């Protein structure tokens, strides 16, 4: 899940219009950019899609950290293809957000000065090659859990972006699991890397779904508007149910002694992740928050002359064309 704790906006508009809008959503119709929509719906979507886009962009950094150290040419090529897809996802998502009346540059500035967030997961470091496996397997796995239902979200451009994104994300998850399989069946050092990666990413992956439903204050309006399709706890349970057997298959141990199959609920029991850590990361105190934001700010600042130069060239070309006509 690349959007967490998205604050939904209250709406104080004409009750008849609101009722008609809700009726369209309930009937499964898609809302398109030119349709009337409540201000709260628009603002919540900008926040959610923007946060999702930012996550794709910042998410390039922990993986980029290993592109230059990928162990084989094939692994390097696969990782490059994956990171390129992620930048592409960022692009479709910014385009979807732009249909709501906000520009990509405005969203970028809000990311860079800390007014907008990206997923907490990208504030964790990638320390060994097995982390490339764990990111694909667990992080992309968790993202897919959230994004598959969002293909049916009520806002047309977001829904269509999700359909494209999901196709590529499932390739990302498979390549992550493939790295984990190689590592888990490899030398003792590789197995140790694989277990260590699972130990470090398990809790943060569970946190990607956001706080427990009891503490999730923004959910009900977003669910009514079909901006959010499932509750945090539903998705987290689904993720654990899918992932525990995969860990067993790999011969790895999920770092939670309380994991046990529960017949009654037909799912696994598991311990809550460390929510104090989650709020620390959200408040800027994750292991890499400062570095990630500094890297994005530096890229933006260092690139200013390029963007200005491109604009100046476009302007000169236009002027030359006008003069010739």
């Amino acid at each position, binding site marked *: 899940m690349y959007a967490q704790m998205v604050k939904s906006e209250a709406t104080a508009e004409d009750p008849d219009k609101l009722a008609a809008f809700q009726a369209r959503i309930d009937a499964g119709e898609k809302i398109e950019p030119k349709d009337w929509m409540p201000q709260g719906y628009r603002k919540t979507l900008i926040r959610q899609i923007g946060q999702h886009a930012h996550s794709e962009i910042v998410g390039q950094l922990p993986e980029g950290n290993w592109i230059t150290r990928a162990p084989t040419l094939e692994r390097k090529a696969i990782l490059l293809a994956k990171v390129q897809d992620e930048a592409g996802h960022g692009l479709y998502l910014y385009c979807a957000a732009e249909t709501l009346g906000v520009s990509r540059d405005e969203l970028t500035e809000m990311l860079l000065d800390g007014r907008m967030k990206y997923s907490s997961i990208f504030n964790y470091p990638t320390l060994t090659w097995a982390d490339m496996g764990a990111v694909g397997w667990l992080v992309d796995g968790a993202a897919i859990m959230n994004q598959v239902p969002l293909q049916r979200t009520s806002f047309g451009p977001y829904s269509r972006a999700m359909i494209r994104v999901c196709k590529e994300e499932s390739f990302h998850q498979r390549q992550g699991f493939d790295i984990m399989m190689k590592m888990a069946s490899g030398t003792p050092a590789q197995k140790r890397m694989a277990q260590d990666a699972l130990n470090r990413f398990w809790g943060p992956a569970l946190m990607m779904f956001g706080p427990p439903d009891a503490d999730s204050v923004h959910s009900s309006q977003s669910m009514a508007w079909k901006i959010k399709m499932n509750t945090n706890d539903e998705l987290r349970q689904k993720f654990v149910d899918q992932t525990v057997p995969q860990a067993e298959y790999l011969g790895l141990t999920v770092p939670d002694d309380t994991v046990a199959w529960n017949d009654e609920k037909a799912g696994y029991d598991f311990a809550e992740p460390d929510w104090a850590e989650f709020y620390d990361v959200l408040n800027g105190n994750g292991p890499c928050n400062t570095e990630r934001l500094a890297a994005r700010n530096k890229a933006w600042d260092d690139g200013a002359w390029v963007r200005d*130069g491109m604009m100046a060239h476009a302007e000169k070309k236009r002027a030359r064309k006008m003069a010739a006509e």
Partner: protein
Amino acid sequence: MDSDLFEFACRMGDNTLVLGHRVSEWCGLAPVLEEDIALANTALDLIGQTQMWLGLAAQAEGKDRSADDLAMLRDVWDFRSVLLVEQPNGDFGQTMMRQFLFDAWHVAQLDALKTSSHQQVSDIASKSVKEAMYHVDRSADTVIALGDGSEESHARMQAALTLLWPYAGEVFEDDTVDQAMADKGIAPLPSTLRPAFDARVRDVMAQSTLQIPDTEFAHKGGKTGARHSEHLGHMLTQMQWLQRAYPQAQW
């Protein structure tokens, strides 16, 4: 072992490997999102070409080494990349100028290799030239836009051209390997590609309003392996680290 073919295929593959690595260092750090995508795409193409060229080199060598062994387990002196591609990224302008100077040669080379008497060389070139043509269109457009753009972008692009120009000529130096390749109809003599390169570079620099330095001087030593830059060794410490630290592992 076909040592001339091995040497030739290493030269082709090491250029794409080293440049692909350099370009991949930009991951997530480009000036705009479209450039992040384009740089990753360029790096991906170059690494894909590396797999084919070093695969051919491994086969020509016949010593049971793989393309990965050649990429990850040779030391600096066995690399055959030209000094141009070893140069650090610098700013975005320097990266794109290096790319353009490489692409302008690469397209001419691959285009000639399409008619190679060696089937595999011809197949690799036919596939790669499509990618290289896209690369040169893009790098030329970027050099033109930034050269012609603002005062600052013009100054930075001129600095990049002045810095990199002495590294542009190495690919056109002929030696005994090149002569053997030309005699067998496998590859053109490098010096014969220079007129097409010069024509393209002159055209692009004129549109960019950039001055080509008035010198014929060319640094050499990368292509033959006689004297690489200091930069290559640092790159290999990163690129080869996992393979060397865990020699028994499969990845």
